[in-house]
Structure formats: C-alpha cells, structure tokens
C-alpha cells in the first residue's frame, strides 16, 4: 500500500506555501533538455560564479562574526570588515539584478550532501 503525499503531513503551521515554492525549485533540478542559447549559457555561468562568491562571502562573514563574538577583533578591524562586507553585498546585489538572479538561485543542490549554502 502506498501513501498519498497529503497523508505524510504530520503537522504544520497555517501557512506552508513557502515549502511549495521550494518544491518548484526542486523540479528545476531535473534538466529536461540542453539549452544552448548563448544568453542562458552566460546567465548559467554567472550563476555559478556568483554562487561560489556567495559561498566565500558567507564563510568569511561567519569567521568574522565568530571572532567578534570571541572579542578578538578591535573596533578598527570590525569597521574595516564591515566596509568590506557591505561593499561586497552591494556589488552582489547589483550583479544579481543584472543577471536576473534571485537569492535562491545562488545555491547548488549537491544531492546527498544537501545544498551548498
């Protein structure tokens, strides 16, 4: 006997549409055909590069926040790091707009390893 998907919801808050959107993203993970349109290739490449930059940005930021928490950064260092991260975020936002990418696009599903970010 097989269960229907609805049978498998044990509990939920009133608003679960957010998860339905994630299912749509999952569906995109199955390539139906190769799209060799040059514009899409460029966008795909930009998506990959920006994903890696976002990964590095998050890793650096986490490290900086950890050091802040431990109190091992001077005010001057915090100021300098803040300037760097703010500029990086600003530039990333510009590039996302340029390549029409959403935040959710800057992630990679690594199969059994989960998402990259």
């Amino acid at each position: 006997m097989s269960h229907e998907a609805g049978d498998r919801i044990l509990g939920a808050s009133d608003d679960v549409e957010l998860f339905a959107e994630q299912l749509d993203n999952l569906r995109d993970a199955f390539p139906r055909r190769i799209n060799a349109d040059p514009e899409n290739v460029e966008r795909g490449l930009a998506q990959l590069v920006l994903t890696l930059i976002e990964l590095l940005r998050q890793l650096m930021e986490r490290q900086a926040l950890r050091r802040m928490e431990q109190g091992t950064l001077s005010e001057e260092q915090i100021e300098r790091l803040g300037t760097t991260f703010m500029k990086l975020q600003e530039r990333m936002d510009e590039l996302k707009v340029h390549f029409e990418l959403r935040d959710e696009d800057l992630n990679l599903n690594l199969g059994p390893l989960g998402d990259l970010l």
Partner: protein
Amino acid sequence: MIHLYAIAGDSLPRRDGLAGIDGAAVEISSVDDLRVVFSRHERGLHVDENGVVEHARVIDDLTSAGATVLPARLQSDYADEGALATAVRERALSLRNALQRVAGRVELGVRAAERTTSERAAGADDPAAYMRARLADAQRLDQVVAAIHEPLAALSDDSVRHVVTIGGFKMSSAYLVKKETLDDFRSVFDTIVSEHPDLALVCTGPWPPYSFVAARGRE
C-alpha cells in the same frame, strides 16, 4: 543494467508483481544474509521526476509491508547482478549495522522557514553597526534553530539538519524515530509550531530512513 532500490535483511517478505522504474519488474535476490531489491534495464537509466516517484514507491511498498530496508540512492546502477553482489559484499558489515540501527524506526522530516525575509542588517551607512547587526541576526537564528531542533532531536535516535540563511532563513532536518515515539514527536512539534508564529513549519513522515543509511555520529 541493474537498478537497485533497497537492501534489506533476510526477513524481507515476498512482494510479487511489484513494478519499478519504467514499469520494470522488481526482483529480490540474496547476497549472503542480505536481500537486494532491484530491476533490470536494457541500458543506463536517465531518471526523471517520474523515475524519482517510481523509485520511492518501491521503497514505500517494502516499508508498508513492515520490512526494514536501507533505501538505495537514486542513481545506484550496476552492470549486472555480479557487480551488485560484489558491491554489497564489500559493505556487508556496515549494511548489517545500518539495518540494525534503523530497525523499528522511521524517518520524520521537519522544514522551517521565516514567513518574511528578515531585513538586511541595519545601519547601512555604518560598517561597525552593520557587523553588529549581522552578529545579532546570526545569534538570533542560532537560537531559533536550537529551539526547533533540540527538543525533536532529544526524542530521536539520530538526526541531521541543514540550515540555509541566504534569501531568508530555511531549515530542513530529519529525525530517526522509534515507531512508538511518533505521537510524542508530533506533540512536541505542535508545541514548537505554537511557540513560533513567525515561522512556517511542516513535519512530514513517516518515511523510509533515507537520511540514515550511512553511519554517522549523532549531531
């Protein structure tokens, strides 16, 4: 080409007439004291959305019949039965241990997401204020994750979790739970929902133990 669905112990019941990916007949054969559940295909499979569902349906059918199984990864294909048997024998000890670990247990999944994307760090023009706001946000998210995950992990034998903060907070986690603990788990989950009106939360299951096939330390 052989497509593997699952590995089970020697108590696996017969499942006659079960169809797998592309309607192929599902077969069960023995590799020493283990049972392998597979289907034969003329060439390598390109698994699409339907294939995912068909793969999962076979595993579902086995667990619905009360079998303890280790679900195989989707792309678990072997050249022939001999290659499959060799691969199973090479991992026989860890497979037996895993079967023991998941016996009498099911997987429950929890997803959490913020209904609205949290504001970017305040103090847009002041770098130090920006960093302090980022730190406060990271600490707040750590507390949210702990408030959801820890009480559920305490009811489970194993758990995994994954937190994404890009584009808003999202958490997905899986728990290996004894069947008799299901009601307790659901009750704790309902309490978490009522305590977090700012989050969208969903708990799904019971699932076959997809996230707990490989040996892993408890988080």
